[in-house]
């Protein structure tokens, strides 16, 4: 019963996003904008999966996922900007345009590896992973958890945001990196490439979803949930909590970075604004609204909130924050399980009604 319902849901999802939307785009019914918008939503959904793994399944509230997201985004953006560079520095290598405006003479050393696509991809995942490892190791080692963890990660997000805002870090400062032309020879402005990126994001989402599903259903996943429910009891049964927490923290960072890498070419710009404290908290909000502790809930939350955001900002631009704030307070207060929980409650009531009617019917027949 549960399985068939799941399959029906997957089927509907795939028919809608893999068949209807792309076909609509090819026949000109669905605009290119909508396609690239949904492509971005899928990226957010991938981040949400990571947040759900860390928070929903392990109980660690990390508020710096947007930072990892941007690390991925920036690495791809750096590669694209390097390839599109027209000016050349004093030592003959080409340097990005924004550096010329900032009177930078030669390419900073850390930009050099991003000339190659492969290295950029590897670094885009490696840097966040290493960062998560080092930061997580020290945090989890000193048994910082719960609220403390949330605050420390928030401070990390704030510090890194300030760091990226500076021109001295050579990452474009407040303006970020923009003016993306082409990636691997494909022009990013063309509709077909946009559709391709959309499909790539969709398949990325499906892939990460099934991997995450496998992860949480495995023994590893069970231990994570045990840690969430009672950390001390799990540690008394001889599990090394530090290892598990660190592993899932790195997985979450990798998912965020992967999403960021898909996200940057689709928006055509990446700025530090994507990684401030609020952005990170919003990512947690998606999961909370969708229903934490359920992978489907995370995806649902990310898609619905971002879809709502797009609608509301165009319809009533000033009131989006009101809506988000109210949604959030009400969800936390009354719907602990988010949208998914709400659907289940409604569905459950409906089913119970059906059953009681059936039972009533039987009784009538019997009597």
């Amino acid at each position, binding site marked *: 019963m549960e399985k068939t319902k799941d399959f029906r849901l997957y089927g509907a999802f795939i028919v809608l996003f893999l068949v209807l939307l792309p076909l609509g785009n090819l026949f000109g019914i669905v605009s290119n904008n909508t396609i690239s918008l949904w492509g971005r939503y899928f990226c957010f959904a991938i981040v949400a999966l990571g947040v759900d793994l860390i928070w929903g399944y392990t109980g660690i509230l990390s508020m710096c996922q947007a930072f990892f997201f941007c690390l991925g985004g920036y690495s791809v953006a750096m590669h694209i900007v390097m390839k599109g560079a027209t000016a050349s520095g004093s030592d003959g290598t080409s340097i990005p345009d924004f550096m010329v405006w900032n009177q930078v003479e030669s390419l900073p050393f850390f930009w050099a590896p991003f000339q190659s696509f492969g290295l950029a991809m590897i670094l885009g995942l490696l840097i966040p992973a290493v960062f998560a490892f080092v930061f997580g190791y020290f945090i989890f080692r000193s048994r910082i958890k719960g609220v403390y963890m949330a*605050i420390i990660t928030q401070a990390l997000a704030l510090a890194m945001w300030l760091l990226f805002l500076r021109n001295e870090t050579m990452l474009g400062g407040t303006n970020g990196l923009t003016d993306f032309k082409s990636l691997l020879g494909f022009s990013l402005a063309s509709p077909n490439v946009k559709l391709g990126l959309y499909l790539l994001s969709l398949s990325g989402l499906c892939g990460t979803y099934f991997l995450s599903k496998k992860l949480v259903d495995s023994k590893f996943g069970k231990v994570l949930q045990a840690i969430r429910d009672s950390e001390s009891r799990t540690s008394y049964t001889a599990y090394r909590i530090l290892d598990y927490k660190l592993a899932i923290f790195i997985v979450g960072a990798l998912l965020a970075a992967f999403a960021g890498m898909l996200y940057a070419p689709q928006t055509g710009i990446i700025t530090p604004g994507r990684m401030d*404290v609020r952005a990170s908290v919003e990512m947690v909000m998606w999961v909370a609204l969708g229903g934490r502790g359920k992978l489907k809930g995370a995806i649902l939350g990310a898609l619905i909130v971002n879809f709502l955001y797009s609608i509301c900002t165009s319809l009533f631009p000033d009131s989006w924050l009101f809506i988000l704030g109210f949604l959030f307070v009400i969800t936390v207060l009354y719907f602990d399980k988010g949208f998914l929980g709400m659907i289940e409650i409604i569905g459950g009531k409906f089913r119970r009604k059906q059953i009681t009617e059936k039972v009533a019917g039987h009784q009538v027949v019997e009597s």
Partner: protein
Amino acid sequence: MNYIVKMWLGLCLCLFIGKQVVAQSDSTHFYVSQVLNPSNDSARTRAIKRLVLMRDPLTFPVLGAINDKKIYMLNGKPVTTGEPEELGEGSEVFPLYYLFPENKPVLEADGKPKKVTLETLKKVDVSRSDRLALNLILPYLNLANPEPEKRIIAYGQLLTSSDDSKIKILTEALKLENNKEAQTAGKEILFQLKLNEAVSETEAKAYIDSLDSNWGENVTIVLKEYSASGKVAGAKKYASEKVEALEGLQSRIEKAQNLFSGISLGSILILIALGLAIVYGLAGIINMAHGEFLMIGAYTTFCVQSLFIDTLGVKSDMFFFVSLPVSFIVAGIFGLVLEKLVVRHLYSRPLESLLATWGVSLIMVQTARSIFGDLTAVKAPSFLAGGWQVMPHLILPYNRLFIIVLTIVVVSLTYLMLYRSRLGIQIRAVTQNRSMSACLGVETRKVDAITFFLGSGLAGLAGCAMTLIGNVVPDMGQTYIVDSFLVVVTGGVGKIAGAILSGLGIGFLTKVLESFYEAVYGKVLILALIVVFLQFKPRGLFPDKGRIAED
């Protein structure tokens, strides 16, 4: 020996010049009156030409006003107008300045500056050709400008002027100078001019000493220049020695200034973190909207100010003293409402409370933005303008001193409340063991509500104080919220002493690191330091003693 002789010579010279001025001023009086009330047209032209040749600084205010076409007569005395003040409905009033024989503001009988509209003044019309005659001494006219800033600029311009008599005119002008800052700046120029002309070593050294003791803005630059390209070889070395000494002194002063701003930042953090720490310790609530109570306090101050000044018409600094308690109460009441509506359902669920109050903070910021717009500012009370000058170049601003004093008062009151009152003992009891205190008859819900009121009120008070040093913007709370949470984390949960110590420490370290590195790297370093610190003290500076069971 030589020095004393020179002083004597200088004194004699001064007396001599002074005598000459007295002799001159009779004729200047005559010519000025000729300019203002000429017996015939050619008399004014002749008088102006004569005054231009005399170059007496006493007459510069009058001539400057003529050049600016802003000369009027008031009760038979020449006056000019200062910066206009909007009166509303397009009309403006001007403050007035007497020009001759003394350059000073025109006051009413009660000592307040007289302000009038242009229509009430009688203008003195001077022909264009007469005004052109002033071109010869144009650089000097601003030496007697009523505004000190303009005078300082005018002194500076003399440096590059090629006029031979500039030293003499500057000396004269400085005698009339009554503003301390402008005096220092002018003297610096004077000594610099004299130093550049000095030929003997002793003379040059004397001027270097004068520059040093005068201690103006640019003294190190001037001396550096001289040590590189001066005329007298012996004095050059002396100048470079002086530069070193001055730079050492300046870096020490900078350190003191940093220390001070560190303490003042720390005291703001303490004010914010105090409420947070108490509430978190008591009820396990992480209130992300705490920063917004700061914002409410600031906007309350703004409203009280507009009420006083615009509605009641009370133009005094009283509003600030009224707004201190008012902002405490208003923020506290908002806190109470928040407690009843939201927080009450989330006690001892810190993570949920964090998320819910974040939602609340979004709503509050957006509400403030739609009511007040993006930027408003509170005019700081005039008695807090300026600063306490400990020594030249080391000025501690009164507003920051006020914040420090306020913090000390508030912290002591909070301490008394927590440790010397009945409410305090209840709060501490509930913090230690909620169910046990409930069993013993403490109304825990009521204690929670009161504590939340107090915590929010403290943030509101901090917001009121913040208006002294910055603008009032809707998201002002969010700038400080993460920092103040770090204070709570490093201090230990629910501990006043922890909040104070870590607040001061973080504020202080931030400013010190900022002075060594860029502000941003300072922040990154602080975070790294805190993470390292938590390796050794995971429960903060003052952890709860005893074995508190985890889950």
